[in-house]
């Protein structure tokens, strides 16, 4: 309309079914078309970075659970790697393998959630979400079995992992690993090549590889844009260099590719878990470290490939028992850098789908 009509300002959020948390998009619309998108975050800000400056290195591990509560294991792992790098702690072989198993289980759980909610945003009335929750529940059961918590696991320790998994863990995870490819095949059958999903997500929210790299976008979003970049391959931490797996790389860079990439990553994670279980070495699960770790003054930046992208932990030590500065590189937040460019000019449903495909976790955005 060329009519001088008032801008139609719509607040999507803070309470809205498809913002997945207290997240607010303030969009200016003309009809169904978006003229401007502004995001308002901070409703969940808990100043973790400040709190961490008052606590010892070990005490900080539970905080990392609460940032990205859908991928607590990966966050634990990233932080522990940073602290180990800073303090020069060696990790036993068995601990590395266990870390890989749990991080990959967490990736499957998180990608299930991401894909389920993405399809939900595309309008399927909860069915795919429920399907994917089914597997996620089993994974969370495994977590509960091992460390007593389902979401905020607090499982990794500086120098290893907190506990040995109980004996009943291994048959359960074997059964799950045997079952998962079938289940993922089920999603594929149900959703991939679905005409409606194609119509909704194909060529929506397209990111070119150059834009994605320049905008610090990482993780499945970057890979869907066609950039073969995965920290597990590029900078193998733990024992990832010993496993055989591939990086799925998309060709269009649209929401549909992000969905497919996540689906394929789940398959690859199953492969990794299987290999790690087969080759799980015996030995200690943890290196003993002093209770109050006092690393040399200095700084360390360790990063892992979290389910949402490069999950970096920047820790500065001044020689004291607590970090002098603690910074989390939150992929959820940084992947939103180009949200405006992706959404403006498209329509409201497209913007919702785009947001869903970016797979944000508000706890991680706000920290």
């Amino acid at each position: 309309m060329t009519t001088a009509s008032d801008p139609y300002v719509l607040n999507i959020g803070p309470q809205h079914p498809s913002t997945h948390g207290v997240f607010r998009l303030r969009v200016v619309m003309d009809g169904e078309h978006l003229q401007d998108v502004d995001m308002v975050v901070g409703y969940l800000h808990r100043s973790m970075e400040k709190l961490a400056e008052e606590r010892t290195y070990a005490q900080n591990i539970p905080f990392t659970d609460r940032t990205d509560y859908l991928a607590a294991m990966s966050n634990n792992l990233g932080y522990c790697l940073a602290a180990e790098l800073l303090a020069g702690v060696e990790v036993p072989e068995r601990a590395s393998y266990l870390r890989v198993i749990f991080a990959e289980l967490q990736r499957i759980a998180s990608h299930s959630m991401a894909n389920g909610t993405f399809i939900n945003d595309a309008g399927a009335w909860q069915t795919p979400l429920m399907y994917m929750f089914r597997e996620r529940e089993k994974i969370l059961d495994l977590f509960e079995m091992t460390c007593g918590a389902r979401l905020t696991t607090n499982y990794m320790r500086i120098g290893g992992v907190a506990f040995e998994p109980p004996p009943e863990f291994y048959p359960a995870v074997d059964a799950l690993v045997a079952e998962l490819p079938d289940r993922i095949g089920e999603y594929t059958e149900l959703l991939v090549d679905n005409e409606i999903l194609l119509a909704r997500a194909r060529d929506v929210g397209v990111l070119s590889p150059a834009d994605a790299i320049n905008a610090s976008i990482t993780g499945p979003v970057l890979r869907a844009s066609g950039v073969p970049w995965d920290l597990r391959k590029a900078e193998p931490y733990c024992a990832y260099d010993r496993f055989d797996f591939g990086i799925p790389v998309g060709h269009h860079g649209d929401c549909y590719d992000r969905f497919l990439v996540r689906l394929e990553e789940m398959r690859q994670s199953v492969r990794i878990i299987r290999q790690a279980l087969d080759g799980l070495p015996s030995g200690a699960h943890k290196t003993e470290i002093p209770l109050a770790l006092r690393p040399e003054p200095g700084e360390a930046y360790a990063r892992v490939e979290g389910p949402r992208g490069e999950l970096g932990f920047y820790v500065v030590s001044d020689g004291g028992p607590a970090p002098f500065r603690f910074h989390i590189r939150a992929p959820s937040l940084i992947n939103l850098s180009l949200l405006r460019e992706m959404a403006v000019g498209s329509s409201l449903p497209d913007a919702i789908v785009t947001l869903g495909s970016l797979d944000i976790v508000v706890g991680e955005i706000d920290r």
Partner: protein
Amino acid sequence: MESTGIIIGFWALAGLTVGSAALVFVVRNLLHAVLALVLSFMGMAGLFLTLSADFIAMAQVLIYAGAISVLLVFAVMLTPLASRDNGNSLFALPGLAIGGAFALLLMFLAVDVDWPELRDAALADRAFADTIEAVGRSLVDRYAFAFQVASALLLVALIGAIALVREDGAP
């Protein structure tokens, strides 16, 4: 017509029609006026039914209550803010006077003229069992030319409306 149902129906529907038509004039909010207009259309459709014109009654509901009213509402929504009131113009009083005069004149004519009217038995004989087929036949038979003209008119109106509202450069 002497069936009890028809008599009750006529007076109720006539009241509804005239009353809500009057509301169109009285009500301040334009959208409320549209609502009253729809109510009036529905009453009119009911009156058509009492005249055993079932096809026309359905067409009335479909076209007036279903289509034109939505069109009106859309037009109201597309012209925002400034013009949602149903205010009177300078000609409100003269208009009312003229309208009243017309109404009185027509009512007088209706009552006063001795219409060549069917009554009682003849009227009952005339009851149409199935107008839809007869109307359909007459449309494609006797009034075929008018039918063609009407369809051409509709087409022209369609194209015209699109051409009017279309923006330059729109696909």
